């Protein structure tokens, strides 16, 4: 019996080492919740600041004035708004993940986290450049769907290097992005679902599954 226990212990140790050495398992669910909350407040801020534009259902048309010039108020607001959301998500995301990695005794900056970041960045940077291309051609309405699609692809691509559950979040984001590219006027609503609601739900599920 003790012999059995020894083998069982060995097997579980093997499994832990395989996981720990190849996947970054310290990604915290709370990071997802924080990102979701920031995204939702960013969208609420947009509705408060630009109420008429947002309610028209064709928010993206406000990017240019009637004589075809760039609407600076619109752009500067969205750039500031998006930067705060992004920065807040990253800061809190790192905070909760560092906290979890200390609990798990996994190094925060090692091969697994580097690999995760590289594989997350490739589709993400591609998407960001592509969004600038859309902006360049004046296709503002397609930017929101494109961010969802590329973000989803980034998650799918990085799921091999962290908790596998992130794959399903990625697939849903891609589907959501594709649907929203047909309903261009509702881009921000899809954004709220994709970056806000989904992150919060995913974060809570992950927290309950791995961190309780």
């Amino acid at each position, binding site marked *: 019996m003790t012999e*059995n226990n020894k083998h069982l212990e060995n097997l579980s140790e093997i499994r832990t080492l395989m996981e*720990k050495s190849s996947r970054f398992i310290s990604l915290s669910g709370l990071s997802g919740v924080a990102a979701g909350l920031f995204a939702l407040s960013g969208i609420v801020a947009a509705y408060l600041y630009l109420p008429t534009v947002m309610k028209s259902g064709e928010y993206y048309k406000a990017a240019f004035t009637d004589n075809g010039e760039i609407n600076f108020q619109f752009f500067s607001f969205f750039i500031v708004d998006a930067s705060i959301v992004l920065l807040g998500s990253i800061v809190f995301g790192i905070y909760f993940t560092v906290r979890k990695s200390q609990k798990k005794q996994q190094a925060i900056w090692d091969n697994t986290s580097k690999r995760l970041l590289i594989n997350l960045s490739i589709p993400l940077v591609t998407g960001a450049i592509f969004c600038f291309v859309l902006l360049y051609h004046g296709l503002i309405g397609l930017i929101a769907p494109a961010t969802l699609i590329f973000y989803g692809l980034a998650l799918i691509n990085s799921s091999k290097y962290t908790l596998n559950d992130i794959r399903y979040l990625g697939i849903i984001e891609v589907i959501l992005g594709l649907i929203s590219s047909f309903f261009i006027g509702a881009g921000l609503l899809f954004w709220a679902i994709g970056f806000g609601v989904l992150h919060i739900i995913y974060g809570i599920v992950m927290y309950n599954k791995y961190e309780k």
Partner: protein
Amino acid sequence: MKTYIEDLNKAFESRIRLGIMSILMVNDSVDFATIKELLDITDGNLASHISALEKLEYLKVIKQFVGKKPNTSYSITKQGRKAFTNHLDALEKLLKNRA
């Protein structure tokens, strides 16, 4: 009834060697410091187990320079992968039969 005990590989009796092989199974190559950190053991201890596994040709040593610093990393060989898989299979069968 076959006991499967003879299928267990003697080379993997130590927990540290099991650990080294587990890490190498799922990574292309891993450097000394990372293995040391994951297993939480001393340099000397790790080095002796690594050289034992190297002698069996279960792992190969890759020496290279990162900038000016020498960096030693390890990767699993074909024989190593086969031997470790067989060992895991034997462990599994052993546990199933006893349960």
